[in-house]
């Protein structure tokens, strides 16, 4: 356990190249090829996180300035994902989540109930967060561990179901995204997208990135979309001309550079993905594909994801101010919004209009969920030693405080053993459906 924690403590930048190299060797690639792939993926991953950090680091202060300027104040304060991470890591569930999630993945691979090999170990904390909340609510560690394992399993299945879309619309061949926060919004996206199919007139609207470029010409290009939206946010934040231009150009540059870093990552991953497919075909006599599960950061670069996120940043604050029943003011975590939409885009097939509608539903439900879960999250955070902001009675966050999956698990577990039975039945049913799908695919 300590060895595992030590490895995780080295950070993704060190561990990612090692894991990819090892994966390549296990899949039968030559050492030189596997090492080159690992290093390329590692460099791409570092680049991606740097550019995403640039985006968030500039967007966050602008949003906070906007909130200050408009004098908005609600009783539940958004303290950001560090509070959720603190809850996760401080708990006993957090201490055990890596072996639990890895074991779940191995069992599901062997039983052909998932096609995803999840190497995104650093984001296992999302499962631990839910497990920790359940432990705190039920005062029973066993329930927390069971829920964490169930969330890990459901995340893998939802990652499989969205993988084809991730390949097609995010250009990430052989990749799935088993990210605890991103997959939580897949059910919302599926339902809303289906409802839109049945609304006359609305169901004919089709605005994808190519369509925007055809209609708006150069103004549909990602760099200009990012620059304009960034400038608008800067203006709303009350920045001077220099600040507005700076934010606009930074956002535009981010939309250009993120796909380049993702491309570098893909160049490293392609040989490993090919080796994995050959390995599965040879060893298991199966045409079933293996997906490499990566951080949602690799999918952030889609123009629709970023454009919708930038539009929803100021809109979320406005909606929070007027939404009945809401007491949560999105603030520290607004820069995390793109992670909520990464798996929405494959479901809406990159359609800007549909992603925006889904996004609005996600924001509204997310605000209510963050409000509802605030008392439990506040208590759990205090218990975990998280430093409360001055004057804060209640805290919450977008990540993972707005997660419908985490919220549903916590509510169902009010029923204790019955809750376990319900969640186990749902997970079993999803695993069976996925097993049938994988079997049909491999024929």
């Amino acid at each position: 356990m300590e060895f595992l924690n030590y490895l995780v403590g080295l950070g993704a930048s060190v561990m990612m190249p090692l894991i990819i190299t090892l994966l390549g060797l296990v899949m039968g690639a030559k050492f030189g090829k596997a090492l080159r792939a690992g290093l390329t993926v590692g460099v791409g991953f570092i680049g991606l996180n740097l550019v995403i950090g640039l985006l968030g680091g500039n967007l966050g202060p602008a949003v906070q300035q906007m909130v200050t300027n408009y004098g908005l104040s609600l009783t539940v304060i958004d303290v950001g994902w560090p509070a959720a991470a603190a809850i996760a890591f401080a708990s006993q569930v957090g201490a055990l989540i890596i072996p639990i999630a890895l074991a779940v993945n191995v069992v599901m691979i062997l039983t052909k109930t998932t096609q995803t090999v999840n190497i995104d170990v650093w984001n296992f904390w999302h499962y631990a967060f839910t497990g920790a909340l359940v432990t705190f609510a039920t005062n029973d560690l066993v329930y927390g561990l069971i829920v964490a394992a169930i969330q890990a399993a459901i995340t893998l299945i939802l990652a499989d179901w969205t993988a084809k879309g991730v390949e097609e619309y995010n250009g990430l061949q052989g990749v799935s995204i088993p990210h605890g926060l991103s997959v939580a919004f897949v059910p919302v996206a599926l339902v809303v997208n289906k409802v839109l199919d049945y609304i006359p007139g609305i169901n004919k609207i089709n605005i994808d990135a190519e369509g925007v470029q055809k209609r708006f010409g150069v103004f549909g290009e990602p760099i200009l979309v990012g620059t304009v939206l960034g400038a608008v946010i800067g203006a709303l934040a009350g920045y001077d001309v220099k600040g507005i231009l700076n934010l606009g150009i930074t956002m535009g540059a981010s939309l250009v550079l993120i796909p380049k870093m993702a491309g570098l990552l893909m160049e490293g991953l392609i040989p490993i993905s090919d080796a994995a497919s050959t390995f599965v075909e040879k060893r298991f006599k199966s045409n079933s594909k293996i997906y490499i599960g990566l951080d949602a950061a690799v999918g952030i670069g889609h123009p629709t994801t970023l454009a919708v996120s930038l539009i929803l940043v100021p809109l979320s604050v406005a909606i929070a101010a007027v939404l009945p029943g809401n007491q949560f003011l999105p603030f520290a975590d607004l820069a995390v919004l793109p992670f909520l939409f990464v798996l929405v885009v494959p479901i809406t097939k990159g359609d800007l209009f549909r992603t925006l509608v889904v996004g609005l539903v996600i924001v509204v439900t997310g605000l209510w969920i963050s409000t509802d879960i605030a008392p439990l999250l506040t208590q759990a955070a205090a218990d975990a030693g998280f430093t409360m902001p001055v004057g804060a009675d209640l805290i919450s966050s977008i990540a993972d405080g707005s997660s419908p999956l985490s919220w549903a698990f916590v509510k169902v577990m009010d029923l204790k053993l019955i809750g376990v039975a319900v969640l186990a039945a749902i997970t079993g049913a999803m695993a069976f459906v996925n097993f049938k799908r994988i079997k049909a695919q491999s024929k």
Partner: protein
Amino acid sequence: MKYTLTPQTRFFSVTIPAMVAGGVSAVMGYQVVSGQADQFTWTILFLSLWVVLDHVLALAHPESIVIDETQIALTSFGRTHAYAWTDIQKLRIKRLASGTLYVRINDGGLLKGRYWIPVHKFPDRLALTQALVDHQR
């Protein structure tokens, strides 16, 4: 047969990324030279120089492609990588679900031999795809 990106696509998909990365490299380089570098400066400098190398030196994002009986030639930023068919031992194509082809010629290296071809952005996409697939080996 010559296949060429539209001017708008060429500008925004090939030229702009190189310009943005070049600009970032210049800013980071200035920070290094003036002693203002922090823990991220060198990393960002390295990555932005990589993007410039990828676009301008390695021509990994070609603006035009010529395929005839004797050779395949990929051109970008006024420079061309030309390969006679007799000199090509391997031409591998990875078709991504997004519509882009990742083409590697003779194993591909850092400065030559790796090409991202967004065939769906070329006017003659079907003919280009078929021409590349026909020469796969």
